[in-house]
């Protein structure tokens, strides 16, 4: 197994606030890696750094053996690293199908080919019924699935999922997790920010824990759920109470 992504001593400040502080870890090809931590731990900021939305103050990010600091978001997408958004960003006036086509255009310039490929992605996530509806009118659960379909249409090597289950009920969460498993079967490497511990432990091969911008722990789900510092800082009694 070789790492697809290596994050080395990455630091990002906002004024005096250090949002990400000297974080290092690697993501293995084909794995689902969980990135967890309390609100404000710096998870989304790390995603923003990796996908070129904000610059790093220090550190390096290596993707497929290449240093990718300073690349633009669209370049990262074309290199094969694509993200979803914690606050979903549907292209509201475009139809659901057209939203996915925007992703598919990474692989082809032909609207016809992109349309066909996109319809397949919509079927894969179960949104094909809504293909002609404006994306802005979907309920939140379906918008999250649309984010996934859009990302899948770019034929990524690695996807970064930012709280893809946030705000969903149990059934919706399960069906989104099924899509994530399907992605993994297709050979896509996944880095997965999630609050729902049950979702994380059930699906992840490895877990990285952030707290106040720093890496607190890293390991298999079993190691993490029994790690004293993690239980102390993040899970508290809550996780055990939930079972």
């Amino acid at each position, binding site marked *: 197994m070789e790492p697809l992504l290596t994050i080395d001593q990455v630091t990002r400040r906002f004024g005096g606030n250090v949002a990400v502080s000297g974080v290092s870890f690697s993501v293995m090809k084909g794995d689902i890696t969980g990135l967890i931590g309390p609100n404000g731990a710096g998870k989304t900021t790390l995603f923003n750094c990796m996908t070129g*939305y904000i610059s790093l103050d220090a550190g390096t990010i290596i993707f497929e053996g290449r240093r990718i600091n300073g690349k633009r*978001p669209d370049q990262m*997408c074309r290199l094969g690293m694509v993200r979803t958004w914690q606050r979903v960003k*549907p292209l509201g006036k*475009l139809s659901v199908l057209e939203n996915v086509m*925007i992703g598919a*255009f990474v692989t082809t310039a032909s609207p016809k080919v*992109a349309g066909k490929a996109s319809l397949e992605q919509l079927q894969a996530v179960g949104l094909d019924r809504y293909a002609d509806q404006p994306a802005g009118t979907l309920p939140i659960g379906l918008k999250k699935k649309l984010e996934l379909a859009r990302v899948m249409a*770019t034929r990524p090597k690695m996807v970064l999922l930012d709280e893809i289950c946030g705000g969903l009920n149990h059934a919706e969460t399960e069906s989104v997790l099924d899509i994530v498993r399907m992605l993994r079967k297709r050979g896509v490497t996944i880095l997965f920010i999630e609050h729902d511990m049950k979702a994380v432990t059930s699906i992840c091969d490895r877990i990285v824990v952030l707290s106040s911008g720093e890496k607190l722990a890293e390991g298999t789900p079993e190691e993490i759920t029994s790690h004293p510092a993690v239980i102390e800082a993040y899970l508290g009694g809550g996780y055990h109470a939930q079972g």
Partner: protein
Amino acid sequence: MKKILIPISLLLLALFLPELVGRNPYFTGIMINVLMMASLASAWNIPGGYAGQFSFGHAAYFGAGAYTTLILLSGNPIDPLLALLAGVVTASLIALITGSIVFRLRGHYFALASIAVAEIVRLSVLNLQFTGGAQGILLSDLTFHGIDLNSKIPFYYGMLMILVLSMGTTAYIQSSRMGYYLQAIREDQDAAASLGINVALYKNRALLVSAALSSVTGSLYGLYIRFIDPGAVLDLRLSIEIILTAIIGGVGTIWGPVLGAILLVPLAELLRSNVIGDTLISMGIVSDVSPVGHFFKEGLAHAHVLVYGVITVVCILFMPQGVLGITRRRK
């Protein structure tokens, strides 16, 4: 089939329109203005309606075309077509400079910067020597491959060609990847970038195409009117009229800008020419000497921009999608 039938029959109608009005110079003049505004609004619509980048300085590209062409032709026996191409080059340069400064920024900045660039162009033309300054430029004689250019008819067909070119370009962009990309940028820049769209590049392309089309329109207008000054072709008011035409018709559609021009230009003409006031007075509805009559006769002639203002406000408040709206296209 229906999809092609309507445009074809409209085009046929447009081709025979001058004959239908008996080659009447007055009506031909108004129709040239309709075609010109339709073409400008179509060009504006590519970055404005599709990509959501509202330029408030499109007069600069129109004026760049008109000025470059007329400056080159006055005193030089060169082909008007070459002079027109030179206009495209000037306008493209202005577009590239504007785009490279502001397309890294978002929101209000592009609107603001586009005004600033247009004002710099206007003031430069006003204060430079070779542009004729405030006096403007007069083109005394013009020949073009033996066509009689003293009639308005050739310019009618010229403008029609440019409008067809603008609409064709829009239709081509809309049906290609670029059209999807521009609309994605309009809806959400961050999401667009995360899906592999080089946002600045596509905004620049859209502006460049738009500037080139506006410049060609300006060149033909210059040849048609043969006298231009900064107030007529570079004013902020022209930029705003272009936007209103597109907005009222419906942005982000092929036909919206055309519809806007068909509605607005004759309305402006109606107000300017006193037709309304004269009719009301001759019908005895209002008296010539009453203040109301005076207003209709004198005031209304200057009121077309006021009416534009009212229409804009009403339009934004009650139908921000314009008459056509951002319809579902590509059926």
